[in-house]
């Protein structure tokens, strides 16, 4: 029986990157702050979380969602590309000794995002990927395979 992985990312570019990175995996529980925005595989499940843009207390509501997801499914690990809404899910995954694979967003080409800095500073990860060489130079122990998307691909290239 396959185990589940969580893919946690805020909607928009963060989620697009997380879905592309995890495209070859099935049995994903995709957690984001909007419904109907993810391109799911056949066995994937979508869970909607709350947006943290305006109210930091929403992290506590998201922690309740995280608790219910971990109680309901046999989760073995978590992939996140950030957005602050991911923090309660990452926090609980670490408490429960699940694997946390954090990939910082490609929109930050020179330094980590604020969420990335927080996750790095408090060691809330088992694997830490950055997408740009300039960022890799600044943080010990992070891995870089380049950006998840080739954005230089123009019509005549």
């Amino acid at each position, binding site marked *: 029986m396959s185990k589940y992985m969580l893919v946690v990312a805020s909607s928009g570019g963060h989620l697009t990157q997380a879905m592309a990175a995890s495209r070859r995996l099935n049995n994903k529980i995709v957690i984001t702050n909007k419904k109907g925005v993810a391109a799911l595989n056949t066995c994937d499940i979508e869970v909607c979380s709350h947006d943290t843009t305006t109210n930091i207390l929403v992290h506590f509501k998201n922690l309740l969602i995280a608790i219910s997801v971990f109680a309901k499914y046999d989760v073995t690990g978590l992939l996140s590309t950030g957005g602050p809404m991911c923090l309660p899910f990452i926090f609980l995954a670490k408490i429960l000794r699940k694997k946390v694979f954090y990939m910082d967003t490609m929109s930050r080409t020179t330094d980590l995002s604020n969420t990335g800095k927080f996750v790095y500073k408090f060691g809330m990860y088992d694997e830490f990927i950055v997408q740009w060489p300039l960022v890799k130079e600044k943080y010990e122990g992070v891995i870089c395979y380049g*950006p998840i998307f080739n*954005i230089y691909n123009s019509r005549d290239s």
Partner: protein
Amino acid sequence: MGQYSIFITAGTLKIPFLRLFDLAKQFGESDLVSHVVIQGVGAEKFFELVNGVEGHEFIDKTLMDSYYKSSDFIVSHCGVGSIVNSVALQKPTILIPRRECYEEHFDDHQMQIFDEVKQNELFLCCEMKEVSLELIFNFVGLTNEMPTGRGLGIVNEALQSYVGEYFSRIGVSTLE
């Protein structure tokens, strides 16, 4: 009846991008434009009263894909999701960064990816103060003369494999 169908997106961020709304209004008034759709927080209410522009607060993935495909070009904030969609579908795109000084974002990080993507001729990267409809229509005319190209296979397979193998090792099944 104008020739251009335009899709404009301010992304899913819950902060309005009002300068983009003003640009959408200008498109709505242009004789060269047949249809304008704009997506972004506040757009639905704002464009209820503006002729020639269809405003949506939020659009799901299926509808978003269909707007991308049916539009002649895209105007977008400088977000990775929009950039990736444009590269994948090879759509000429005008990218305008959200700026902190106009309270359009928490910081100016959209300038970072803006500087990277400038190298791709599919994009016209400009600050809002530099934008004019004439500049945009000239750019779209030029890109239409470029050979239509690849666009597929833009995902970094080495990174995708690394993620796949990592989770496969801890018990997650992979696609056949």
